[in-house]
């Protein structure tokens, strides 16, 4: 887009040409004057204005003079440039050229300061405060206010994470507008009137929103501060590093601020195509899990059945001995924390060093159908081949299948909500009930019991303007991914698969699946294997499709596999926790490559400590296939070794070579290998499994993981965890009546490996004979779609 045009330039018809401080500028029709000025590099001071919020015009700081509105007549009064839509030939004079604008602005600044406390020296915002900056650059040296300042008790807590200092507030309403317009959680609101107006909340309903931390960041003063960061540091003592969030597959660009080799806080970065300027609270606040007492600092080896610290050389010797004994009978399980480069290391190590395809990155419910689906529809794509965030904003309809955006991909949720609000996007949720997130998307519910999604989807209208978003949970239902693919193809709709974890999409691209080599190459495709082998300079690659995660564990338990390499897998995430735990226990030899002690490390024979995400470089691929840089923030790592270097060392000790040692080498090699250009695998055509309704008194499980739950990645974020939604069981009124319970009463869920007591929430629209449970069910040996028995009562 042309920023500045010369007189005589042809301007597109949807562009408006105007003059700011005498300089000609062309901007799209509908642009506000303040944005047009930005394009010229003219900074008009502002507090309430925020480009992603609806114009407010409340602080009045951004006033400009408009001697000509484009029709030959000027405005008699100064105008707020944040609410002034540009018009052809409009003349705008900012503070730079207009004494009227300059006085208007300085007058407002003075008003904002008369009641502002002089506590900048102890304010977290000091040093990065727009009001402070304005006061320093444009304020009076001395006040002429002779009155008394307005005072309130301070601070007050609006949630476990956020403190409000009403004296500092300039009532810009950015926070309340964010909560209402962006996230749809208006648990904070402006209250009182006039000079007493303030941000308020209701005592019984704190501001527990998954996106609450954003209001701290967009507050133009120190009114909203983070309990976590309060009094921790000065902005000018921090070193800022742009990073990609390691939690979910949204690919958020964040800013990590550190000092003294400690991360002090994280903020949303500026990524217009991804997270815009927002982040979820997990990305913002959950960054301490690697700094707890359970951090692994040295390698461990098992001696006399006890894990003891060992030197790196000793640990590598033990590991190599175990691997040599196992030969190719090794299974590799990787988890969602791995970067693309790390995952590529594991994929290559498995094939080229171990000589097997027994690798799976899916530490969750998965299926062979899903692996085929990923091969056909997901792997080997580049950004733009598939659906993007931008496409979500442009779609006329989005259908959600096995996917709960607010819980499972919160930035996707924000994008959808923005489109619903601004462009009247219609969202359809194929789900057992309309969740709170669904309500905030004004979604239409197509109700179905878990497993009934395929049938329900058949009745939904879709066309070329439609996007179907399917979540990783779809793998729990036989035939669903086949049906979704078929549905989208027939309707001409676009389809996107959105996993939960940050590393998952990269791991698929890197080849951490039993059926896929890097770049979406199928293991079964001879030329693909030759291609990769040639690139790697290795001998022929194994041709038999590998075992998936479940089979790997089963084979390890029976001794069919002689060794396991496990990296980044939490057993609690697996669908059959007891079985997985037993398998690790019984596996002949287990190598664990991990950051913190876990249920795997405690059962391993060798444990290698590896670097945290903040201690290494790399790449995450988000659900769109968009690469996001992982940047080394902390250069004084507790463990100097990365996953890649551990693998390279093991390869060396095994007498071969991994050929890559650093993320840069890994990425270069992966990129030069490129994506598969041959024919794509056909999408799976697995028929939908017929399921009978549960017997009287039994319930089919609907479930997804809530954004803030007991995930180990959230450990250490104490205030964040306080804002988690409580674990509940949701059933409909008929079920509640049949069970003799009402909302809040306990009910007991009888799983295969144990039972759990949860309070009931009566969910009016819940499909009959369905119970919704929060998603950490593997420990009970149950998973979505299973049938369980419920009874009233029980003690949690």
């Amino acid at each position, binding site marked *: 887009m042309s920023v500045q045009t010369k007189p005589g330039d042809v301007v597109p018809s949807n562009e408006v040409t105007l003059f700011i401080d005498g300089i000609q500028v062309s901007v799209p029709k509908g642009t506000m004057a303040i944005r047009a000025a930005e394009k010229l590099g003219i900074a008009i001071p502002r507090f309430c204005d925020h480009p992603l919020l609806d114009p407010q015009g409340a602080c*009045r700081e951004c006033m400009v003079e408009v001697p000509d509105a484009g029709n030959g007549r000027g405005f008699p009064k100064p105008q707020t440039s944040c609410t002034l839509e540009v018009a052809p030939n409009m003349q705008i004079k900012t503070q730079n050229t207009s004494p009227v604008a300059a006085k208007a602005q300085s007058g407002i600044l003075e008003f904002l300061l008369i009641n502002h406390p002089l506590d900048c020296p102890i304010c977290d915002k000091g040093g990065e405060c727009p009001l402070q900056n304005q006061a320093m650059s444009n304020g009076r040296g001395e006040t002429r206010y002779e*009155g008394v300042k307005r005072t309130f008790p301070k601070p007050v807590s609006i949630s476990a994470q956020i403190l409000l200092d009403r004296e500092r507030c300039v009532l810009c309403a950015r926070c309340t507008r964010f909560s209402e317009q962006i996230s749809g959680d208006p648990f904070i609101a402006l209250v009182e009137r006039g000079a007493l107006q303030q941000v308020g909340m209701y005592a019984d309903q704190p501001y527990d929103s998954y996106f609450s931390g954003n209001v701290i960041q967009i507050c133009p003063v120190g009114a909203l501060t983070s309990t976590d960061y309060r009094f921790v540091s000065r902005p000018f003592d921090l070193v800022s590093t742009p990073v990609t969030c390691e939690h979910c597959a949204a690919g958020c660009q964040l800013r990590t601020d550190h000092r003294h080799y400690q991360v002090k806080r994280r903020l949303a970065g500026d990524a217009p195509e991804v997270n815009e300027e927002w982040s979820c609270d997990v990305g913002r606040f959950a960054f301490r899990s690697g700094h707890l007492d359970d951090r692994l600092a040295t390698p461990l080896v098992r001696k006399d059945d006890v894990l003891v610290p060992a030197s790196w050389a000793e640990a590598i010797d033990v590991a190599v001995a175990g691997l040599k004994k196992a030969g190719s009978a090794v299974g590799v399980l990787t988890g969602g924390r791995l970067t693309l480069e790390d995952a590529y290391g594991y994929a290559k190590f498995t094939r080229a060093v171990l000589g097997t395809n027994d690798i799976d990155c899916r530490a969750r419910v998965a299926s062979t159908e899903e692996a085929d689906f990923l091969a056909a529809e997901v792997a080997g794509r580049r950004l733009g081949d598939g659906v993007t965030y931008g496409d979500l904003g442009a779609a006329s309809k989005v259908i959600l299948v096995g996917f709960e955006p607010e819980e499972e991909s919160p930035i996707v949720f924000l994008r959808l909500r923005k489109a619903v609000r601004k462009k009247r996007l219609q969202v359809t949720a194929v789900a057992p009930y309309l969740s709170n997130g669904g309500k905030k998307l004004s979604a239409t519910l197509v109700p179905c019991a878990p497993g009934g999604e395929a049938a329900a989807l058949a009745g939904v209208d879709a066309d070329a303007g439609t996007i179907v978003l399917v979540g990783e949970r779809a793998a729990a239902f036989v035939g669903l991914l086949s049906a979704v693919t078929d549905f989208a193809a027939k309707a001409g709709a676009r389809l996107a698969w959105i996993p939960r974890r940050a590393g998952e999409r990269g791991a698929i691209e890197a080849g951490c699946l039993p059926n896929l080599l890097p770049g979406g190459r199928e293991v079964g495709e001879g030329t693909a294997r030759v291609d990769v082998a040639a690139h790697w300079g290795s001998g022929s690659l194994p041709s038999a499709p590998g075992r998936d995660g479940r089979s790997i564990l089963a084979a390890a338990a029976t001794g069919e596999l002689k060794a396991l390499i496990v990296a980044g897998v939490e057993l609690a995430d697996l669908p059959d926790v007891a079985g997985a735990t037993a398998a690790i226990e019984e596996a002949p030899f287990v190598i664990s490559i991990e950051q913190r002690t876990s249920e795997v490390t405690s059962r391993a024979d060798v444990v290698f400590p590896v670097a945290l995400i903040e201690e290494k470089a790399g790449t995450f691929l988000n659900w769109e296939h968009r690469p996001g840089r992982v940047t080394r923030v902390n250069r004084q790592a507790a463990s100097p070794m990365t996953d890649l270097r551990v693998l390279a060392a093991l390869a060396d000790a095994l007498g071969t070579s991994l050929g890559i040692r650093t993320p840069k080498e890994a990425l270069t090699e992966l990129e030069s290998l490129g994506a598969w250009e041959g024919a794509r695998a056909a999408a799976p055509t697995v028929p939908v499994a017929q399921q009978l309704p549960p017997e009287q008194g039994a319930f089919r499980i609907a479930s997804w993981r809530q954004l803030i739950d007991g995930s180990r990645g959230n450990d250490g974020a104490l205030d964040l965890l306080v804002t988690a939604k409580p674990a509940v069981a949701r059933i409909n009124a008929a079920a509640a009546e049949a069970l003799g319970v009402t909302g809040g009463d306990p009910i007991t869920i009888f799983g295969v490996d144990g039972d759990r007591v949860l309070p009931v929430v009566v969910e009016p629209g819940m499909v009959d004979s369905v119970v919704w449970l929060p998603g950490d069910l593997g420990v009970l040996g149950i998973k979505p779609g299973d049938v369980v028995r419920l009874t009233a009562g029980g003690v949690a």
Partner: protein
Amino acid sequence: MTDTLTPVLSANWADPKAWTLGAYQRRGGYDAAAKALKMTPAEVMGIVKDSGLRGRGGAGFPTGMKWSFVPQDNPNPKYLVVNADESEPGTCKDMPLLMASPHTLVEGILISSYAIGVHTAFIYCRGEVLHVIRRLQQAVKEAYAGGHLGSNIYGSGFDLDIIVHAGAGAYICGEETALLDSLEGRRGQPRLRPPFPAVAGLYASPTVINNVESIASVPSILAHGAAWFGSMGSEKSKGYTLYSLSGHVKRPGQFEAPLGITLRQLLELSGGMRDGHELKFWTPGGSSTPILTADDIDIPLDYEGMAAAGTMLGTKALQCFDETTSVVRTTLRWVEFYKHESCGKCTPCREGNWWLVQLLTKFEAGKAVEGDVDKLLDICDNIGGKSFCALADGAVACVTSAVKKFRSEFEAGYKTPAWELFPYERSALFDVEGGAK
């Protein structure tokens, strides 16, 4: 030449049980509505436009033109909202009208709604007037029972519902967009324009917001014609209107007269200022209109006359203060009103009035310091024309006009408390012991 006073709206106020449907109909009530519903809506709108009726809520915008801004092709329902939030200091015309003759408004709503194509109308009445609300509720109920509201009114096929809505205490809700937010169950804070209410008002639908007196004037216009209405008043300020005389006058009250009458004429009718006292200053249309003095009593009280005098006709609330009154005290109390009623949305109004009250308090107490008058004016300059809506402009107008006309009284505040210069009990109608003077 029309008569000095022309009671139209107030003509029936002395009738027995004037507020009832029976009393209203005995005077031909609802005949104008029956007549209007036999015309086309465009014809009705045309008559109102031709009459030259201008908004009686203060701004004086031509009523018919306002109606014509409603896009008739908009698929959303259209709404008419009557602004009965009368709260501007000095203003007291709509409440007596509604208490005495609520059916005049109901009939006006019926005719206006028909012209605009509205099927749901609201009367947003300030909450602090219980008996007015009782009368409105009853009048609407009677009108339904009498077939003047509801479906297929007079067999015309036209349907109309009226909802009487009580506010809850907020002057700012008299601002039309704040009123809409309030009527939507929100905090009454003004909205950004555009979009204008005519396009996206209540529930984001096309909405007309008119003052009580404007809508109440419509039945008489329909009954007697646009020319009749235009035969009263001055060239650009046509028709009759209610003037509310209050303060230190011998007989305060409501005077319905053609636009353009002068304060001198009204004072003569009311017996002049109270005995032994003379006019010092007055407001033409509430506290938000710059004050005038005894020199200005021959200026026509119409939109143009008042604009030429540097003030505004406003709500025609003529508050007259005599020479016992401290301008500083009066101004402070008005600014306290604006501080109390500021909605808080924008900085200059919220913080500026907070500051002005404190500074004016110093003037009143004789504790202001040299230069504070200029500071006062500069603060006013930083508020005036800078705020989100006109509320703060009103606050500034009363301060700057007072300083302009009585600067020395403010300068006296550098040394002497206002209550020493103007002993407050002298302004009261009774002494401190409570006895009548």
